[in-house]
């Protein structure tokens, strides 16, 4: 019986799946992963996990002090990033930027600061500052400027143009338009992005210590390197609890301010 319905259009899905499988196979081959014996590795892993028997809190005061330093690094990094981003996001906003060239330069700068991993910046700063928290603060600040700058600029661009027009029509200066029409309209986005950055920075600050940029990463790396697993376990617990605490605090701040 002829129904007049055209034949089902060819679906590209199987082709995609096959392509991805092929890609993965290629990667496994390229990275010589087949040398990797899964059985051996799981045994290694099992044995490794068993080393973390029980956490040893004998150095707890030291860990707490360094955890506090980690949070301090995150606070300063986020704080500097916030201030600089607020002051400079105006240039990266298409409808508020004085010139198309300025806009492009500002946007690309934010993109660049965002794209380079914090750790790369940290490593570079350690070359100038030496080991210590300053490198961590600067690395987090730079990356934060990129993220917040771009985020604020994009939020500003999403504000209805009518709001800006009203202020332009009274002869307001560009900065006044930004302060009166722009920022009040994106308050919620500013709070969200800044708190997200702070959360992320606490996490990153813990990690930056591994390369020497201060904070709790320093004793952690030491513990792992020297095979002192119960110490490492304890440090991990401290980090975990602090991260959960900061997430909780920023969630409550977000709820109150939004």
């Amino acid at each position, binding site marked *: 019986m002829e129904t007049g319905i055209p034949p089902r259009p060819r679906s590209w899905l199987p082709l995609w799946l096959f392509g991805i499988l092929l890609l993965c196979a290629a990667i496994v081959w390229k990275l010589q992963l087949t040398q990797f014996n899964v059985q051996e590795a799981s045994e290694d*892993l099992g044995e490794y996990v068993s080393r973390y028997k029980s956490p040893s809190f004998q150095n707890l005061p030291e860990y707490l002090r360094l955890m506090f330093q980690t949070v301090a690094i995150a606070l300063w990094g986020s704080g500097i990033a916030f201030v600089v981003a607020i002051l400079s996001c105006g240039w990266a906003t298409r409808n508020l930027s004085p010139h198309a060239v300025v806009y492009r330069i500002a946007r690309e700068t934010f993109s660049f600061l965002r794209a*380079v*991993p914090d750790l790369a910046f940290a490593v570079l*700063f350690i070359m100038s500052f030496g080991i210590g928290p*300053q490198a961590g603060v600067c690395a987090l600040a730079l990356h934060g400027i990129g993220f917040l700058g771009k985020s604020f600029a994009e939020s500003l661009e999403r504000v209805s143009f009518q709001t800006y027009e009203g202020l332009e029509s009274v002869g307001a200066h560009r900065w006044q338009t930004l302060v009166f029409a722009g920022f009040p309209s994106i308050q919620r986005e500013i709070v969200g992005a800044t708190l997200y950055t702070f959360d992320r920075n606490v996490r990153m600050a813990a990690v930056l210590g591994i*390369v020497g940029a201060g904070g709790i990463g320093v004793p952690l790396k030491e513990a792992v390197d020297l095979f002192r697993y119960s110490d490492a376990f304890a440090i991990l617990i401290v980090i975990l609890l602090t991260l*959960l605490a900061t997430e909780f605090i920023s969630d409550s701040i977000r709820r109150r301010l939004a």
Partner: protein
Amino acid sequence: MKYAWPTLNGQVSRSWLAMGIGAFVVLGGTAATAGMEPGRFRDAGPHLADLVGHLLTPPDWQFLGPLGAGLVETVGMAILASCVAIVVAMPLAILMARNTTPWLFIAYPLRVFTAVLRAIPDLLWALAFVAAVGLGPVPGIAALIVTTVAYLAKFHQESLDVVASGPIEGIASVGANGLARRWYGVLPQAVPDLVGQWVYSLDSNVRAATILGIVGAGGVGFDLSNAVKLQQYNRLGPLILSFYIIVTTLDRVSDRLRRRVI
């Protein structure tokens, strides 16, 4: 005073004042711990200037070959990790979401479990895995898989939970059983979100993979830490630049991917 504010009593609003003072107190109190001493910065100034100058020197052309290989390895790690993570995260998310889980009492423990997994930064996982199985891309891929599964499962679970109930009721009304309801009712609605999250995970993993090498877990991070230790400035420039290029290309590719699928 000649000036006033547009508030009821003409002064700066109480909450703004509180926030300002709060920020001042918090930053001031932590300044010492965070090492914010002007002296340190003044001393570092000339070093920084030197560094920037060095970064802009002509690159080490011979390095570009190994750099390219390293980049390929990095991206390969990320792709592999994402693929495996997607496959693992899907069933996990289905078990974690209220809409699709066959047994509610395992949904919540699973959520807590993945939250804990998520809280540990990927570099720490990499550090742990390197200590367990040795150097190379394998611990890096494993670390990426663990963290990606953790956040992918959570994102997926959230997408599955906010699916509209209309279509599900429609399917239930024709007498479909639980499995059919989930397969035809819940899953198809969440697909655009899920695919977007997959693309995001690929993007995020490439960024992460560039760094894991610092602890020896494969990728260009290793070259970075080497170049720093040996002060090979002519390699640092191209390294940093390559990070930038990778990430921006990736942004554009993932944008295009996302648009094609949605």
